Structures are given as C-alpha cells and as structure tokens.
C-alpha cells in the first residue's frame, strides 16, 4: 500500500511538473490567452510585404445536393480570402485561427496527425460513406496531415468537400 501511494505521488508530481513547464514555455495556453493571440495574428493588416496565404473552403462539388441543408456559403465558398502567415505555422495552425476568427465551427481529431472531420457543420460521412473534407496546396494533394505541412508565402490552401473520394481519384 505504501509503495502504491509513493508511486502515485511521484506520478502526480511529475504530471504537475510537465503541466507547469508547458505553461511556462507557452506550449499550454488558457483559452482566453490563446484566442486573443490568435485573433491578433489574424487581424494583422496585410500590406505588400506581409507573408500571406490564400485560404479557400469550398463546397461547390456538393452544391447541387438535394435534401441536405448545406452551411451558409457564397456560391459554394464558405471562406475565400488572403490571410497573414507567421513563420513556422502549419496549415492546421492557420486554418484553426482563421476559423476561430471568422466564427466557423470545426471539428478535428488526432494528436500529432490531425484529421479535420467537420467544417461549418458539414461533417464527414454526411453525404455518403465516402464523403469528407480534403485539402490541396497549390493544386496538389499533399501526402501528409495538415499539421505536418508548413506552407510558404503565397501558397494557395484549398479545402474542399467531396461526396466520394474514390470518384475523385478516377477522374484525375
């Protein structure tokens, strides 16, 4: 019993240390701080020299779907604009702060390799067994998760919803 208590205490102290270091290095943030920082980055004014990316979220491929209420969109685009890019940000980092800033709900899962399940209420598997969100950078489908890819200045990041990713491969 003494041993168990000792092990538990050591574990709790270790966990507390990890969390403390996380807070100190900015690895872990409180929601308020996170939000204000992200919004500041997004609201940065774009002058000619600011590094930027174009981010589009597009549902044109499923726009003619009947019997399903699609999220609010502008002729098939939920989002289409240029946003400031901070050095070292991954595609996921940009997307998450822009979506937060634009008040677009999105759901994702995974630790290091994030998979985006749903954007603006349109989620995977909503329009069939093979439907879901895919992404392209400069017209090419990257073979890595969106957390692993670091975009460069001027890149075009394109998220799109397909009702069957199988058909997608055949047509290309």
């Amino acid at each position: 019993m003494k041993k168990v208590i000792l092990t538990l205490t050591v574990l709790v102290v270790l966990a507390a240390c990890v969390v403390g270091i996380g807070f100190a290095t900015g690895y872990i943030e409180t929601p308020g701080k996170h939000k204000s920082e992200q919004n500041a980055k997004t609201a940065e004014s774009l002058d000619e020299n600011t590094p930027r990316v174009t981010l589009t979220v597009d549902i044109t491929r499923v726009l003619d779907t009947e019997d399903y209420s699609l999220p609010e969109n502008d002729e098939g685009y939920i989002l289409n604009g240029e946003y400031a890019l901070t050095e070292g940000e991954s595609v996921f980092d940009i997307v998450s702060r822009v979506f937060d800033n634009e008040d677009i709900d999105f759901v994702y899962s995974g630790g290091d390799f994030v998979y985006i399940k749903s954007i603006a209420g349109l989620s995977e598997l909503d329009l069939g067994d093979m439907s879901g969100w895919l992404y392209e950078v400069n017209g090419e489908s990257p073979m890595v998760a969106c957390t692993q890819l670091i975009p460069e200045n001027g890149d075009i990041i394109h998220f799109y919803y397909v009702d069957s990713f199988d058909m997608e491969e055949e047509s290309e």
Partner: protein
Amino acid sequence: MKLMHPLAKLVMLSAAVAVTMFARSLTAACISAFFALAMLFLHGERKDFFKALGALLIFTALMALTNPLFAHEGRTALLYIKNRVYTLEAMFYGAGTGLSLGAVIIWLGLLNTLLPKREQLYLFGRFSPKLALIISMTLGYIPRMREKLTRLNNAQKTSGIYSSTSTSAELQAHATVFSALAAWSVEASVDTAQAMNARCYGSHRTCFSMRRKIRTGDILTIAASIALSVCAFVLYGAGERFRYYPELSFGSNEAAFAAVFGLLSAMPVMITVKERLKWRLFTAKNLASPTTAAKSLRFGR
C-alpha cells in the same frame, strides 16, 4: 446468491454487463460502476474491494485526462495544448468510457466468483461435452503445471543444478527443468486421453449432478432481468440518445432509463442484502448455537 440457480445468476449479471457495454451514456456508466462496487463490497474481501475501487478511480482519471489529447470535439475549451483544444466534453467521454470498462471488468470478475467452476460446467457442459472437457482441462492445467514446476525445481535444487553463478549456466538449468516439465505434461495428457477413452468418454450424453432445481424465484429473476434489460435498451434507443458532443446532453428518456437500469443492476445487491438480513434475523440459528443453548439451559435450571 448461493441458493439461486446458476442460470438465474448468469442471466442477471450478464444483463447488467450487456446494458453497460452497449448503452453509451455517462449515467449508465456511473450506475453500473456503483452497483458493481457495492456487489464486490458484499461478496469480495475488504482488500479486494479497496483494490478494485482504487484501480477503477485511477483508470477513470487516466482515461479522462488522456482522451482530450486525441479527441478535440466539444464546445467547452479548457486549455490549448500545442494549438489543439483540450475540451471538458472529451474529458467526460474519457471518464464515461473508463467507468463503463471498469464496471464491466468488475461484473465479469463477480460472475467468476459467484458462479464456481462446477456451476459453469453444469451450465455449458450439457450443450457440448467436448467444450466441458476443454474447460475442465484448461482450468486444471495451469495450476497443475505450476505445482509440478515447483516440485521439479525443488528436486533439481537439491541435486545442485542451480549452483553455478554464470547466467548462461543458470538459463541452461531453467531450460532443462522446463523441458522436463513439457515432457511430463505431454505424457500426462496422453495418459488422460487414454484413460478417458477406456471409460468411453464422449460416446454418450454427459450428466452433471446439480442439487438445485429451477424454482419460481429463479424464473422470476430471469424474467425480470430480461424484461428490465429490454426495457432499458428501448428507453435508451428511443428518442434523443445521450450525447457527449458537441455539448453534454442527456437523452430524452434518461431519467426513466436510469431508473430501469438502476433497478436491473441493483437486483443482485438487493437479493444479497435480503439473504444476509434473513440470516441475521433467523432466530432458530441463535437457539441452535451452543452458547445460547447453554444459557437457556442455565436459566432453565
């Protein structure tokens, strides 16, 4: 519980396990874990109960803390870790999963203690004598083998096989003992098979003696467990279900479901408590005990 027919015990406990496993609801997990622990408190040793309680709490806490690292659904953000949201709902989901998993493990352990091997054989042996043979052989095999291993080891120790200090020689000695053990077990199984063949095992239906007959109480227990579990599943499935994401929301029949499932999982506890009370308040027992008999004798004089 000792007076009940094994089939009634099996049905009652597996109904509780089934609902715990298939109803993904935080209330169901809490109810099931609570009554499983209560049952363990009544039937297990004090030490086992505290061990199980501690393990359940630690496991649940661990699941609750780690699930939000991988599942980022839910509205209530608590923290941001490396730009990923850490949500309260994901914590609840982890806690619910941990509780129901722990509860199922405790229920299955209880099933094992409340249904001794003999009763398990009685229940399943009639369907297939081969299965009964396999069960009884595997159940006896490991303890018998361990006992033989200690005996072999002790015998070899006295003959000085473990005297060498080098690791390789020690390993070799262990290998020698193990090979002897394997040879013994193969020989023993051949012996058993031949002996059972000679006794015509498997050539006719196997009989198992069981003093208990299914009584009205057992039938009532079985009927009540089946009816309650079906009722619980219907209440769980109909209308809105319990949802963790995006916000914790109880199902539309959650209260009724909780009541029915509570009754179902409380049934074994109630039966046990009733039996214990009956035993405590059983006056003939007091009269029969030697001290009271002596006392009454003394007063009588």
